[in-house]
C-alpha cells in the first residue's frame, strides 16, 4: 500500500468529508425525503420514520464512498453541496 502520497492534512480533510460532509448529505436526504413524502400525501410522522430507517444505511454508503472516490474535492462538493441543496429544496417544499 502506497501511503507516501497521503499527507495528514489529506486524511483529516477526507475524514471530515466523510463524517461532516456525509452528515450534511444525510441531513439533506432526510429533510427532502420527508418534505417530498408529505407533499405526496404521507403523514409527517410516517415520512420521518421512513427517512430515519433509511438515513443510516445511506450514511454508511456515502461514508465508504468518500474514502473510495479518487477526488477529494468531488467528495466535498457532492456531500456538503448536495446536502445543502437538498436541505434547501426540502425547506422550500415544506414552507
Amino acid at each position, binding site marked *: 500500500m502506497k501511503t507516501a502520497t497521503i499527507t495528514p492534512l489529506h486524511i483529516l480533510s477526507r475524514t471530515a468529508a466523510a463524517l461532516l460532509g456525509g452528515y450534511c448529505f444525510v441531513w439533506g436526504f432526510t429533510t427532502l425525503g420527508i418534505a417530498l413524502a408529505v407533499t405526496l400525501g404521507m403523514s*409527517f410522522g410516517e415520512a420521518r420514520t421512513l427517512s430515519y430507517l433509511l438515513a443510516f444505511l445511506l450514511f454508511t454508503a456515502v461514508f465508504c464512498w468518500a474514502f473510495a472516490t479518487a477526488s477529494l474535492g468531488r467528495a466535498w462538493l457532492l456531500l456538503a453541496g448536495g446536502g445543502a441543496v437538498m436541505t434547501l429544496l*426540502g425547506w422550500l417544499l415544506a414552507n
Partner: protein
Amino acid sequence: MLQTFRQSMAWLHTWFGLVLGFVLMAVFFFGSLSVFDREIDRWALPETRFEPQPMPSYDNLLADVFPNMEAEEEELDAARKRIGGELPAQLQPVGWGAYTTHRDPVLDVFTEYSVPNPADPFDHVHGHLTLDPRNGTVLPHDRLKIGSEFFYPLHYSLHIQWQQLGTWIVGVAALIMLVALVSGVIIHRRLFRELFTFRPGKRTQRSSLDLHNLTGVVALPFHFIFALSGLTIFAFLYLPVGETVLTTPAQAHLMEEAVSRGLPFEPAGEPAPIASVDAMVMEAKKRWAERGMPGEVGFLWVTHPGDRNSFVSLFRAGSDRVAFVGQGVHFDAVSGRVLYEEPPPSVVAGINEFLTGLHLQHFEHWPLRWLYVLGGLLGCTCIATGFIFFTEKRKRNLKDAALVRRVDALAVTAVTGMVVAAGTILVANRLLPVALPHRGTWEEVVFWLAWLLAFAHAIWRGRAVPGSLSPAWREQCWAIALLAVTAVVLNWITTGDHLLKTLITERYWPVAGLDLALLASAAIAIRVAFLLRGRERATAFVDSQGSRALEVVRG
C-alpha cells in the same frame, strides 16, 4: 483515496476500526450486560430479591404515592439557575406514571412538573422513586441499580451527559461499526471459508486474524442490525429535522394528531377528581384481549393529574412479542370513558417498532436473551482480535514501536481493564457500608478509578515483542478472576445467598445467574492467564537460544 477500491476500504477498516474500536468495545460489552440489567440490579440490591410483580393497583397504592412525590433536588437547582430566581413551593404536576416489565420486582414511578419560565413555556423538572409494589415501601434514593442505571446508560451514553456528547460518540461508533462491516466484507471476499477457518496453533498474528474474521462473519447480521437499530432509536437526536428546518409540517402534524385523537392538549385549570384507574385497566385489558393480544399494563401515564382535562394512558407490556410496549388506550381521567384507542401500526411504523423492540428486547424468552449476550460477546471478540492483529502485524517494524505500545496499552485497558472495572463495582457494591451517604455515587467512582488503574498498569507493563503479548493481559486476567470470585463470596457472606441456596433450596435465577456468570468468567480468565504464561515462556526460550532473530523493542 488509495490506488484501488479494496486498498481504500482496508485503510478505512484498519484506522477507523482501531480508533472507534475502543468505544465499540465498551458499547458491545455493556450492551451484553444490559440484556440482564434487571438481574444485575437484584444482585446489587439484596432488599429487592423477590419475584417480579405486575403493575400494582392505582386506586389503592399509586394514588397515594404520586401526590407526595417531589422533583429531584439537582433538577430543581438547575431550574432555579435557568429562571434566575426562586421556584414556587408547590410545582404544578404535568404528568406522572409508572413503568414495569416481566422482570421487575420493584416499580419505577416518575413525575414531571412544569417550571414557570417565561423564556420556555415547556420547561419542566422530574421526580423519581423506586418502590416495592406489594406494599408501597420506598427504596432509599442513593442505592445504585448497577444494571439498569449504570451499565445500561454506559452502553449508549458512556455517562458523558454534557450536551449528550456521549450518545453522539456512541452514534459515530455505531456508524463506524456499519462501515467496518461493509469494508470488512469487501476486503475479505471469501465469506464462507472464513466461517471454518481458525488456526489457534499458528502465530498470534495469523490466529487472531482468523478469529477476527470468524466472529465478524458468524455474527454479521446480528452486528449489522444492532448497530443500525441503535442509530434509528436515537435518530430523533442525531437528525432533529422536525425541530429545525421542518418545524412547519412538524407542528401541523402534532396539532392534527392531537385533534384526531381527541386528547386534551392543555390543562383546563379547574380541579377535578380522578375516576377509578383500576377500572380503566380492566377495560384496556378487555380491549387487548378482543384484539387477540391479551396482556398486562407495562406503562401507565396520567397527563395533567387533578385537572378537569386530565387523561390516563395505558400501554401494553411487550413481554410476548418483539415489538415494544404499545397498543395504547387513553381514558378521560374524570369520567373514566375511553377517549382514544391507538390503531395497529402502519407498515413503516411496524418495521420501526420491530427494530426498536429487537434492540431493546423486552420479550420473555430466556434462551434468546442468552443468544443476545453471545452475539454481543462475539462482537467484543471481533474487536479485541482486531486490536491484537493490528499490533502483532506492526511489531516487526521498529519505527512502529511507539504506536504499537500505545495501541496495546489501550487495547488492554479496553478489553481486560473494562472487565476489571465491572468486577470492581460489584465488589464495591458488597463492601461499601450500607449507611454510607451517596453510596451509589461511590460505587461509580470506584468503577472509574479501577478502570484508570487498569490503564496505568497497561502502560507500565507495555512492551512490543513480536509473538508475545504484553504481560499486562495476563496480569489483568488474574485480577478479573480474583474480583469475580471475591464478588461471589462477598455476595454469600453479606446476604447469605450462596449458590446452593439460589440454585436448589430457594431457587432465584437473577442472583444465581450472575454468580454463575462470574465464576465462569473467573475460570476463563484463569485458563487464559495460564495460556499466556505458556506463550511468554516459549517466546523467552526462543529468545534466549538466539535461534530466531527477534527484535526486542523495549521502552
